[in-house]
């Protein structure tokens, strides 16, 4: 016979305004097995918890139902209180009579009756609850950082400097990310590479960091503290140990006309190449899609010229398996593809470029050594138009959000342009200027006032070429919407920042959720901005949403702290709400029949095979067994099991069956 305590919370007036709490306590107190019931103004307050603890002791309660807010809010609170009073915390359940009742229904009898129903369900459920002990699992104190841009670099360095091992995986041949492409950075106009490259080198040289470039994560199994990751190291066609990075091969490669990705197509590179001079690691890779040898079967010039004989044409991709305890996603962002704006002629007119291309033009190490030149004819543009919000804040085209960084970099571009082309005239078409940030507004004012940039509030409707000029048509909404037409030499589009291609697949590989724009989703927009819904996986930088450098770095450090905090424990304590396959005395052993259909349904590979042997060592049965370290408690196997041999703590067959009975039979 159960001795259950029911505690009905008024939550101030949040519940009692529509639910008759006294009545709920009184009626449910009459239920079979309820030893004690009461109502109280604030159950979660200190006196409320004391009331609970005293009642547990005084009435020797063996189960507790707290009817209050959502268990997602206070279940841990009350379970902890129960534990302090000597009651196993898993013998405590909550009925959600606030979010699911008092807040959504009017004050009437039906609402109070519903509250009674919800309490009755939990009273019946808790009768079937079992005392459980938390599960302890070890923590592998190595972090995986996916992405080697500024966010990944920051996170990796922070974690490594806490004394933990870090494995960094970068898709490109070099780390550095978008930041390495930038010329100077707002609002201080620091040279981007000057501040980034030391960090890149630090990553490469850090004793705690293992770097895998030209690599991608293929499989992620396991769970917080115990992930198993398979990394595909794409073949660089190179023995990295032998290569000295002399660069001779890159100069001798006969194939020289491959659009350079790093220069965003404004320059060329050979088939064997280092993406940029400060690359880390500074060793080349062969781009097999464009290499003459791989296409035609002969050439091998690089092999011939290589002084250390480091070229390996037959090198295969390598799969590296690593065990890590935490994962930081720092895969960054991308910008909109050209075909998004047919009306702007991007891709059609050579002199319509995007912001990143302008960064390359403005960069001292770029294709024009920092001189602003038209891609079409190399002439200096005297009139230049910057189009802000190219794609962003455009519900009609599907990108409703503000890309956040464009206002600032557009101002920076205009300023850099004026610094380099003193007699030039920059125009900026904008919707609003969003310059929230330290020294940001001041920076924009400087661009307008000191550098004389013409800011036109309005959208550009079309751009077309006429007599070697780009005719930019728009409207000036501050002048009553009068049409405006500028004969420009060059147009720079501040294209929207979007999720990386393949972000969705990566999210599914890593098992994190993502939003409708395919940016990775944080666990809570305010309170858990660097966590994901999957424990042990964190976010850094622009893979979550467009972010500027300081924000990316801050988030990366935040993620790093989360990882370090996780690694400060030798083992993790987990809720024991996991599945289990029953075991019975011989000769039954288990009602599991060994069909293993549960095995393929498990998202965590938590179902193992256990061989039952007789005294002679012969296998007489093969049964499923749940690895409780791997099981995350989704219960999909429980629903699938035909013999009901698998059950799950906390949501057991008995419990859910009883809940339905109790709910529908008042």
């Amino acid at each position, binding site marked *: 016979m159960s001795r259950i305590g029911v505690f009905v919370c008024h939550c101030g007036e949040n519940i009692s305004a529509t639910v008759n709490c006294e009545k709920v306590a009184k009626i449910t107190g009459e239920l079979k097995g309820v030893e004690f019931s009461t109502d109280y103004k604030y159950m979660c307050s200190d006196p409320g918890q004391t009331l609970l603890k005293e009642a547990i002791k005084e009435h020797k309660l063996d189960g507790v139902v707290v009817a209050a807010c*959502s*268990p*997602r*809010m206070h279940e841990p609170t009350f379970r902890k209180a129960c534990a302090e009073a000597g009651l196993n915390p898993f013998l405590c359940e909550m009925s*959600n009579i*606030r*979010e*699911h*009742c008092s*807040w*959504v*229904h*009017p004050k009437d009898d*039906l*609402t109070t*009756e*519903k509250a009674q*129903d*919800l309490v009755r*369900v939990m009273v019946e459920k808790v009768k079937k609850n079992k005392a459980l002990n938390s599960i302890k699992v070890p923590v592998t104190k190595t972090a995986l950082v996916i992405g080697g841009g500024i966010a990944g670099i920051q996170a990796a360095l922070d974690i490594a400097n806490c004394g933990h091992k870090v494995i960094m995986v970068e898709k490109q041949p070099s780390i550095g990310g978008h930041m390495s492409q930038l010329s100077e950075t707002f609002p201080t106009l620091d040279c981007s590479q000057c501040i980034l490259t030391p960090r890149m080198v630090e990553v490469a040289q850090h004793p705690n960091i293992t770097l895998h470039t030209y690599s991608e994560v293929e499989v992620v199994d396991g769970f917080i503290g115990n992930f198993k990751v398979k990394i595909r190291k794409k073949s660089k066609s190179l023995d990295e140990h032998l290569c000295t990075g002399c660069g001779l091969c890159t100069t001798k490669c006969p194939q020289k006309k491959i659009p350079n990705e790093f220069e965003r197509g404004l320059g060329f590179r050979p088939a064997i190449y280092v993406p940029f001079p400060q690359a880390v690691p500074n060793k080349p890779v062969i781009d097999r899609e464009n290499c003459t040898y791989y296409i035609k079967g002969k050439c091998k010039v690089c092999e011939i010229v290589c002084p250390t004989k480091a070229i390996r044409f037959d090198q295969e991709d390598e799969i590296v398996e690593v065990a890590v305890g935490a994962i930081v996603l720092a895969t960054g962002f991308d910008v909109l593809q050209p075909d998004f704006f047919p009306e702007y002629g991007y891709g059609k007119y050579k002199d319509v470029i995007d912001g990143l291309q302008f960064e390359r033009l403005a960069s001292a190490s770029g294709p024009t050594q920092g001189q602003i030149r038209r891609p079409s004819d190399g002439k200096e543009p005297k009139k230049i138009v910057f189009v802000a919000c190219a794609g962003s804040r455009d519900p009609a085209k599907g990108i409703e959000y503000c890309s956040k960084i464009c206002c600032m970099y557009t101002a920076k571009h205009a300023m850099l342009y004026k610094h380099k082309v003193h007699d030039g005239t920059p125009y900026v078409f904008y919707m609003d200027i969003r310059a929230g940030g330290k020294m940001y507004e001041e920076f924009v004012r400087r661009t307008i006032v000191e550098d004389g940039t013409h800011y036109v509030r309005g959208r550009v409707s079309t751009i077309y070429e006429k007599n070697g000029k780009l005719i930019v048509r728009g409207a000036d909404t501050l002048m009553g919407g009068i049409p405006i037409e500028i004969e420009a030499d060059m147009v720079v589009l501040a294209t929207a920042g979007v999720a990386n291609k393949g972000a*969705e697949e990566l*999210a*599914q590989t890593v*098992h994190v*959720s*993502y939003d409708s724009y395919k940016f990775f989703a944080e666990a809570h927009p305010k309170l858990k901005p660097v966590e994901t*819904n*999957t424990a042990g996986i964190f976010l850094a930088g622009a893979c979550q949403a467009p972010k500027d450098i300081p924000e990316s770095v801050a988030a990366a450090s935040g993620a790093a702290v989360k990882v370090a905090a996780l690694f400060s424990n030798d083992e993790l304590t987990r809720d024991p*709400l996991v599945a289990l396959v029953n075991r019975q005395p011989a000769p039954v052993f288990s009602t599991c029949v060994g069909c293993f259909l549960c095995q393929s*349904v498990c*998202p*965590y590979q938590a179902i193992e095979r256990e061989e039952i042997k007789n005294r002679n060592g012969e296998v007489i049965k093969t049964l499923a067994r749940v690895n409780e370290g791997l099981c*995350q*408690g*989704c*219960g*999909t196997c*429980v*629903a*699938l099991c035909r013999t009901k041999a698998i059950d*799950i703590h*906390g*949501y057991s*067959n008995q419990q*859910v*069956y009883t*809940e*339905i*009975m109790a*709910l*529908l*039979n008042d």
Partner: protein
Amino acid sequence: MQEFEPKIVAFVCNWCTYAGADLTGTSRIKYSANVKIIRFPCTGRIDFMILMKAFENGADGIIVSGCHPNDCHYSTGNFHARRRWIVFRNLLNFTGIDTERIQFSWVSAAEGFKWADVVNNTVKKIKEIGPYENYKKIAVSTLFNEEGASNE
């Protein structure tokens, strides 16, 4: 005549729809009190027999709701659940069980409004269709009548 107040039970996952329903509460969006929630870790946990038990204990309608595809907290539980419902609905239809009375939905933790809509629309629909008389004839409670079990 007293208006028919249907009994509707909602089987929802903890991470999306339960949280979504919490948000409905936090946002003080009103909905009908006929629907009562039973929490599951994941839609993957919801055995088809749970739906049968609901009808035979007197439910007039059922809501089953979880995370949107690709959003499952356990990454794939809702995909397995979806397959299960595709098959089970076929079977229920074939045996003449009224699948109109079962509303399947995806409601995320952010869709407080959607949850209220799902509930209100389901209640409205079940009120229109009326009590589930066919199932009530074989419900558990029929055993408790004076006549009791068939003494054929």
